[in-house]
């Protein structure tokens, strides 16, 4: 066997093997540990290796945890829908009018990522809070402050949209970048109005990119901790925040692990639910190859 043949044969397993090992070590093993821990219990900061399903029973019957999960599902859905609704016209405008600065415009959306997430959320807390820019200006003008943006779920939602909108914009922009705009011209030539051309050509052929953007916003929102903690107020506890509490001050790690497993399964189910309703071949997905 020549050295070149060996290299070409080794390249595949090597290229796939390294990330596989990486995922096994840093994702599968911790996840398996989490599953095991979820079947143990804690007692005053001590892990008791006593196999039981008590944590799952607590989650199912405790009421509070179901409430947190429902709140998070609703929050993640609302935030993802709003993000997609905002990101679409923004991405479309960049494609249509961005000219040679299109990439620059898209990258500009990533500028906030140059700072930490904590900083961004705290900055937003300052903006939306009682002394923040919005309410400060309103009060200086003699108007009443907007209480619904001060430590409420609305404030959390604003924070989450702010955090994840750049991702959604980037994904939809990339989808539109690969879209053949001549198809719109073809639709118009055959008599379609711009609106009809959009809904029957542009939207469906970029649906896959849109769904990826939706999922990349929806899943982290489900486990969001910082935004509800700093912006959400007394009624703003979401599932991720409650889960973080188990690993923090309360030290109820086993219950937290069970919450993590439930969150993981919920995320997978959500992605499957979205994926099963979509015909990938008709949504601009190009991952099937030429065959």
């Amino acid at each position, binding site marked *: 066997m020549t050295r070149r043949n060996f290299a070409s044969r080794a390249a595949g397993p090597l290229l796939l093997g390294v990330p596989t090992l990486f995922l096994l070590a840093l994702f599968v093993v911790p996840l398996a540990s989490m599953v095991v821990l979820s079947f143990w219990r*804690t*007692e*005053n*900061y*001590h892990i008791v290796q006593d196999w039981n399903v008590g944590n799952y029973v*607590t989650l199912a019957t*405790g*009421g*509070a*945890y179901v*409430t*947190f999960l429902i709140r998070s599902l609703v929050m993640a859905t609302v935030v993802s829908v709003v993000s997609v609704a905002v990101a679409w016209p923004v991405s479309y405008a960049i494609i249509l009018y961005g000219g040679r600065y299109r990439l620059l415009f898209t990258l500009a959306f990533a500028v906030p990522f140059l700072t930490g997430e904590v900083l961004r959320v705290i900055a937003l*807390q300052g903006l939306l*809070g*009682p*002394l923040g820019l919005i309410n400060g200006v309103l009060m200086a003008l003699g108007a009443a402050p907007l*209480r619904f943006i*001060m*430590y409420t779920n609305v404030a959390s939602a604003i924070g989450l949209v702010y955090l994840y909108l750049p991702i959604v914009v980037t994904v939809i922009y990339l989808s539109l970048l690969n879209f053949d705009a001549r198809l719109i011209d073809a639709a118009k030539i055959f008599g379609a109005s711009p609106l009809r051309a959009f809904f029957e050509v542009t939207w469906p052929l970029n649906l896959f990119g849109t769904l990826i953007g939706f999922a990349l916003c929806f899943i982290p929102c489900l486990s969001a901790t910082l935004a509800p*903690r*700093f912006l959400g*107020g*007394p*009624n703003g*506890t979401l599932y991720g925040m*409650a889960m973080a*509490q*188990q690993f*923090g*001050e*309360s*030290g*109820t790690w086993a*219950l937290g692990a069970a919450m993590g497993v439930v969150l993981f399964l919920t995320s997978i189910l959500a992605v499957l639910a979205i994926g099963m309703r979509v015909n990938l071949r008709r949504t601009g997905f190009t991952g099937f190859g030429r065959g």
Partner: protein
Amino acid sequence: MKPHGFNPAGNRLSATQAPRGPGGGVNRRQMLKTLAAGTAMAVAAPYIRPASAAASSLRALMWEGYLLPEVIAAFEEKHKVTFAPTFFDGNSEAYNKLRVGGTKDFDLVQADGFWPSLYFREKLIRTVDYAKIPSTQELFPVFKPDQYKLLTDDATGVQFGVPFCWGSYGITYNTAQMPAEKAASIECLFDPAFGGKLSTSARFEENIALTGILVATRMGTKDKPRPDGKSFNPYVLTDEELDGVEKLLIEQKKLLLTRYQDNATLAQLLESGAVVAAPEFAQVYRQLLNKQAKGEIDTTFAHTLVPKEGGLGWVDTWLVSSGVADGAKFDVCQSFIDTMTSKETMKKIAMASGCSTTIDIRSLSTPEEQKLYLMDRTGELASMYMFDQPSSTEKWERVWSRMQAA
């Protein structure tokens, strides 16, 4: 050759050291081997450092607010050690870290209230020698071992910690918005008259414990014999009391603007008038008074140190991890504690963190500072319930979660 030294540049070979090929040049295989060995050395270096090198670092698990860079730098210079702090927020977080092998990762630890005795019982910390920490001579009487028993082992009478700063979880309030007689009771934090203008911290233990004092007072169980035969401790509540706490916390929720996450947020909320009263460690109160003294704000704030039903108190302490054996490292640990509890450092810490000190720094303080930092009120500590570990974190967690979901 240094027997224990590791050359920091060991993963790099100079031109004169590099192995050469048959023709005097470096062949590719040799170069690759050298690079691989160098890389392996670099990766392994942190793990193969000799034990003697470990004495050159001092690792502390501590509250961030007590870190004074200039004091640390001077200590590092004097003792030729590197100080490596890791910060935590609450006792339970530090306890978790210590329990999962932290005694090997940390030399110095901070904790408050009853936590040091729990650490000692669980062999997470070791005893200290007050004779090697001369600054302990300057402790206020109430914090000396004969009066403050929480850092002394009952069985042997030896000390396992040094008191550092102290305070309460009292109520800071806006005097123009809340009368002093209202603020003298925990009831003010549950009074619908102040709905939307109250705030509490996000710490579940202290919220439940403080509410527990009020519930036990209302139920009349605070001064009656307790199931455990001991005196009332708000961290050891009966199921009936916990039910009462849950109901009260749910009622309180609609009265709160928010649960503050940090002192800066609370200071802003109080300053703006958005919040009129909140329980806190008096640090924000002192910041606000300082601002008022400088003419930066007009509002007057006051602080209820111990509400009439009883209040929560804390004494932050310095402890030495059980991972530290007798010897040079232990000596450095005690020297560090001595430096941190010296009068001069304590004065700086009081000014920087806004905490009262356990060391008597009255000789270095103005009458205003003595008043502000409660230097003549250390005796009130005896009437406070010390921060403690909840009797059942699982039960307390359920109470807190149900309240959050309600």
